[in-house]
């Protein structure tokens, strides 16, 4: 361990005192190295593998841009990209308003709200696998919850998974069920940080609840909206376990999304090179979108003002 030597007599006491007792930057090296080995280097290797042909066993052979030109011409992948896009946009449009509503509501400090919020959190404790399996059972057209509720709600047929739209809606709903609590928590934290003075001032000016929400709470939650949206967008572009378990991409290819294609290409088709190209393209798109969101909204400045303190 690096410790400051107490024996040295400081010539410039102020400057030295400032440095004494401070950890060396080397303390961050193990974490950095570990992260580099298991996350950064693999990203580099993905980039490299995307220019190779490799079955996962022998040595990769360099094929130049073959995977990338295949990627651009791949109709199945284009369909999957379309499904990913639809799912991402729909996820955002579905989850944001509900999470905002729940988060701002539960930010109130009443005991009843705390109890109800605890119920909202339950889905968060389940793993993706558990959530997907539970809903697969509950959405079962013959024996599930839906089979029982659908006729009462006026639907004739509860076989969601047999039509493309139904399956996509089911995926959208299950993802919402799983992730809305997380985003509601983010909004709850954000709403609690809104200074009371603002609400009091607005109330004195005669603003009602709705008016205060639109003019104070929502603008104050700007950063939270951006953070939550980035999480949602990146999340819905890159997750795949829920879909794998819930619909396995079906019916046909109706819910086959890009990460699922990448997974199957790599670990079922053993085309690691092409899978890497798809995965890397996905990272580029996801990073591009989140950077764009961060830039457009000025969110990036939040961290930089605090760095190096």
């Amino acid at each position, binding site marked *: 361990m690096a*410790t*400051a030597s107490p024996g040295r007599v400081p010539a410039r006491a102020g400057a030295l005192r400032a440095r*004494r*007792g*401070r*950890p*060396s*930057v080397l*303390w*961050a090296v*193990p*974490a*950095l190295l*570990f*992260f580099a*080995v*298991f*996350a*950064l280097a*693999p990203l580099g*290797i*993905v980039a490299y*593998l995307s220019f190779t042909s490799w079955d996962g066993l022998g040595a990769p052979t360099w094929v130049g841009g073959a995977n990338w030109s295949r990627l651009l011409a791949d109709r199945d992948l284009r369909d999957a990209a379309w499904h990913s896009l639809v799912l991402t946009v729909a996820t955002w449009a579905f989850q944001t308003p509900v999470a905002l*509503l*729940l988060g701002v*509501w539960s930010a109130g*400090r009443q005991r009843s709200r705390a109890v109800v919020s605890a*119920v*909202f*959190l339950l889905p968060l*404790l*389940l793993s993706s*696998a558990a959530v997907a*399996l539970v809903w697969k*059972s*509950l959405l079962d057209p013959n*024996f599930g*919850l839906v089979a029982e509720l659908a006729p009462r709600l006026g639907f004739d047929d509860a076989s969601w998974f047999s039509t493309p739209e139904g399956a996509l809606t089911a995926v959208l709903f299950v993802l919402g*069920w799983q992730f809305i609590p997380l985003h509601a*928590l983010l909004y709850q934290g954000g709403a609690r940080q809104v200074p*009371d003075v603002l*609400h009091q001032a607005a109330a004195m000016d005669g603003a009602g*609840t*709705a008016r205060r929400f639109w003019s104070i709470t929502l603008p104050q939650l700007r950063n939270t909206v951006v953070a939550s949206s980035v999480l949602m967008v990146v999340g819905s572009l*890159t997750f*795949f376990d829920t879909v794998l*378990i819930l619909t396995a991409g079906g019916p046909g290819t109706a819910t086959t999304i890009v990460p699922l294609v*990448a*997974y199957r290409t*790599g670990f079922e088709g053993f085309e*690691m090179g092409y899978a890497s190209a798809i995965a*890397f393209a*996905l*990272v580029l798109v*996801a990073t591009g979108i*989140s950077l764009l969101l961060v830039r457009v909204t000025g969110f990036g400045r939040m*961290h930089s003002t605090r*760095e*190096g*303190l």
Partner: protein
Amino acid sequence: MSPARRVRRPNVVALGVLGWLVVVAVPVYAVVVSSVRRREDYLDGGPLALPDAVTADNYLHALRSGFPGYLLNSTLVALGVVALVLVLAVPAAYAIVRSGSRVSARTLRVFLLGLAIPAQAVIVPVFLLVSQLGLYDTLLAVILPTAAFCLPVCVLVLTTAMRDVPEEMYEAMALDGSGPARALVRLVLPLSRHGIATAAVYSALQAWNGFLFPLVLTQSESTRVLPLGLYDFQDEYGTDVPGLLAAVVLSVLPVLVACLFARRALVSGLVGAGGK
């Protein structure tokens, strides 16, 4: 709370909240109730009916079919990930906050950049790396990459927490002649314990619920973790919905128990931010 905050909200909001409460509570009720019913009763009565005969058979069955092993594996993975993450992230965050070097800001930026790397995208090289290390189909194969992907959030949480330690207290420690290690143990660790708890809970949940790394990096029964166990359970038992749901309930129980003891840390761990 000031009276101005306690204004009644329009009923639309209350209705919306109530609606979502139903959407969450009904499935949870259905899962719990169905898990104690016999399979025939479930098929007859549907998931909402009250059980006429309560049975523990589903739970016993799940416990007999490898479940304790999966539970043990998941626990080991979670413990390993938490230990590894804390051992790496605490000194890193401390150095980022206190080293006073220009490099430290850049270090933080590397981790922030890492937030944007989805595990899904690098799974092929991670698989290659783990095989090369001879770790394929071991619990360590799951622990190492899971811990790595917890680092960005945990470093971020810990730096935020450590920045809140007042400068004067560091100076007091330095005046006493304490080195950085002593300052870390005596000052930083106690004062940023909420942040540390948040990081620990976040990592534990990531490990407990992780699906992709175990799916790709392990294959045998002896290394199976809970989410994969559930996934296979479904293949094996097909239409035995009560059996499956009992297994799901069993997999959530440890988290629920932890929740009772550390609700606050759990909530901030879920969001992976704040800690206060």
